[in-house]
């Protein structure tokens, strides 16, 4: 039972992967730990409950990963996706430590799918959680409870009292009532601020009303804000977020993985005005899916429509909402609420520009357009075979990049460069140190696990001194 009159060694703020890794590690090291999770119990776990894999370095095949994935290749992948907006020593350290994580995770009850059983081609680099992120969190919560971590749900931290880089206490709302607690050290693992639409509005204006937030509605960034307001050094571009294209019919929050749409490379994508705006076949989908959120966010009304015909329909993953289906293009345009004439013209121009060539849905093929702007450089086939299918698309925000600056011990750095005495961070809230831009599948959970472990260990150590 949580006891708010005592002084805890370690206060962990957040209830996702990064928070649980820190709480369990600190408790294993003998510290008394209180964990405050903003969400009520059924929705605990932040964005982490929507994840499914973890990217791990390994020298040789393991039970859960095939082949090998060494530091340099991992680092190369990271440098490429971030365009160099990363911190090489921190990143390499994270990569190396990732190699040691799976045994500890398994000891906490996390279960993985056997290597090779996954449907995706990621089994060399990524270990898949059996049952996904919620199953992983269930295991961590059970472990935390068994070890004696005190946990409060429905407990949103609203303010931290930081005094010259030294945090003294935390204020929070517990089931709607104000409360406060004192701890020797604090680990902030409260995720990004993507669910705080007013904050997002500062950069994106009213376009945010058309954004879908893929994960938890509880990532409001209050902890991030109070830290930055009290002199902790920021990192990452506050205006930027990771976004993918997903079904416009998705719920505003918590739709998770299943709302994504993989139809783009086999479709043409039109905006609200019925015209194309980007090369749908630029590269294989796993390398391109993350740019489409941004592309759609920049279109009028932040909406787009993916249109394909019968021969393309079975080439992509089934969608969570049924496709809008019609026997003619005109009927489809009408059902989608688009101008029929413009859509017919756009598709006719596209069809006329399609060149003959070898089609291959699994790799870069020869099917492309000629003399069309923008071009479609792969998988371009005429859209002509009824029935026709359409999906409305919106930008789906995964996470924001703004965070707190940390060192290799997960200790926060103040704006003047000095390390804080007792403030630590892990997970999304500090991911911008390593992942300043772009994304590498499975790396979010790696950062949270590695830095959660480090923050838990260092906070427990600092509390003893």
């Amino acid at each position, binding site marked *: 039972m949580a006891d708010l009159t005592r002084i805890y060694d370690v206060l962990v703020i957040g209830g996702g992967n990064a928070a649980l890794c820190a709480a369990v590690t600190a408790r294993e090291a003998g510290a008394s730990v209180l964990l405050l999770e903003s969400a009520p119990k*059924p*929705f605990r776990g932040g964005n982490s*409950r*929507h994840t*499914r894999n973890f990217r791990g370095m390994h020298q040789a095949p393991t039970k859960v990963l095939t082949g090998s994935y060494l530091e340099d290749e991992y680092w190369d992948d990271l440098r490429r996706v971030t365009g160099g907006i990363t911190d090489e020593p921190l990143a390499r350290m994270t990569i190396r430590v990732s190699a040691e994580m799976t045994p500890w995770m398994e000891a906490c009850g996390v*279960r993985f*799918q*056997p290597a090779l*059983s*996954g*449907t995706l081609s990621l089994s060399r680099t990524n270990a*898949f959680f*059996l*049952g*996904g*992120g*919620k*199953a992983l969190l*269930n295991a961590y919560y*059970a472990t935390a409870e068994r070890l004696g971590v005190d946990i409060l749900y429905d407990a949103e931290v609203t303010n931290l009292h930081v005094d010259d880089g030294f945090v003294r206490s935390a204020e929070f709302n517990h089931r709607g009532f104000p409360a406060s607690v004192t701890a020797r050290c604090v680990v902030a693992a409260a995720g990004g601020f993507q669910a705080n639409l007013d904050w997002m509005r500062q950069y994106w204006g009213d376009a945010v009303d058309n954004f879908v937030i893929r994960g938890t509605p509880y990532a409001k960034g209050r902890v991030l804000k109070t830290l930055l307001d009290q002199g902790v050094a920021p990192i990452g571009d506050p205006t930027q977020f990771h976004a993918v294209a997903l079904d416009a019919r998705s*719920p505003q929050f*918590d739709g*998770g*993985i*299943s*709302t994504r749409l993989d139809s783009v490379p086999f479709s043409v994508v039109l905006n609200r005005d019925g015209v194309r705006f980007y090369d749908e076949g630029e590269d294989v989908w796993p390398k391109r899916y993350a740019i489409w959120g941004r592309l759609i966010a920049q279109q009028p009304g932040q909406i787009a429509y993916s249109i394909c015909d019968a021969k393309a329909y*079975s080439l992509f*993953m*089934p*969608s*969570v909402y*049924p496709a809008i289906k019609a026997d003619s293009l005109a009927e489809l345009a009408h059902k989608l609420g688009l101008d029929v004439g413009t859509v017919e013209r756009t598709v006719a121009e596209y069809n006329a520009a399609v060149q003959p060539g070898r089609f291959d849905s699994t790799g870069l093929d020869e099917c492309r357009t000629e003399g069309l702007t923008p071009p479609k450089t792969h998988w371009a086939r005429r859209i002509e075979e009824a029935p026709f299918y359409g999906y409305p698309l919106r930008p789906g925000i995964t996470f924001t990049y703004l965070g707190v600056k940390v060192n290799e011990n997960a200790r926060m750095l103040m704006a003047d460069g000095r390390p804080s005495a007792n403030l630590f961070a892990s997970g999304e809230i500090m991911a911008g140190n390593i992942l300043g831009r772009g994304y590498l599948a499975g790396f979010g959970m790696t950062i949270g696990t590695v830095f959660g472990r480090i923050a838990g260990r260092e906070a427990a150590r600092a509390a003893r001194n």
Partner: protein
Amino acid sequence: MADLPLPSEAMADARHNMEICNACRYCEGFCAVFPAMQLKREFSDGDLNYLANLCHGCQGCFYACQYAPPHPWGINVPQAFAALRVESYAEHAWPRPMAKLFERNGTAVSLLTALAVALVLLLAGSLQSPDVMLRAHSGPGAFFAVISYQAMVWSASAVFLFALLAMAMSTTAFWRASGGGTITAKALAHALHDSMTLRNLGGGGDGCNYPGEGFSHQRRWLHHAMAYGFLLCFAATSVATLYHHGLGLVAPYDLLSLPVLLGTVGGILMLIGTAGLLWLKVLADPAPAARAVLGGEYAMLILLAGVAKTGLLLLAFRATPAMGWLLALHLGFVLALFLALPYSKFIHGLFRTAALVRSHQER
């Protein structure tokens, strides 16, 4: 013959679940359902009946689901499939009017038991003078002093053969309706292996999430005890029949004889299995359970426990005056069980094996 209203709420709910699961697929490592689901883009009623019967109700995907209630999508695969399974039993029951029984399953099964017991007691009582029932009997043929061998064999065989026929008819109907084709030997062998080991209750090594969120092998082992206990009892009866007709040996048999040994071990296993499963059911988290099917499941377990318990009591007290009543009671439970076989939860073993065959065939 009144057709069931279609499409039912259970069917719609199962479709909603599968459409979301198929876009998510996080649970693909749990059991046979998800790989089978992934082969489809759209789900016909037959597909859903098939998938529902492939589901072993291990509950792994319920606790792992980020869309479980109170999420507005309310994904609850074990609950949706349990509800659809009972419907599929009823829909394929043979003869069709018997489908009615499923609508009030729990009550129906208990009623049947009571009726059968009463019937046997009545027969026993009226065929014999009251003092026959109260005396102790011993030696070969002692049982038949109470109930004639002919009456016992004819009633039991008739009911049993009818049950076999009914189960074969409904399983065939289920197989056809769910879209199964010609059965290959290899798929059959794999399916039998899976159903006899309950591989899909293994949850990838740590067992299933039953009775609650934690992992446990209890259910699998208790089910094994019950199912294999039942088979041993069945073997005991078969051996006894052989003794009687082949060797001319007449019951009751020696304590160390094969039929009695098989029956005793089988009976004890059944008792452990059914009592354990009943206990787990009481403890079980109600969230992933389907309310409507619980009554039938309790009734079935109680019936099986009744068969085992009366059998063992009969063995223990067969040399006393209680034997007459106990024999009647035991036979009553056995007859009720036989009668209920095709119209109760019991049929799940056959439907599930059929579903496993199809899943192996499609691989």
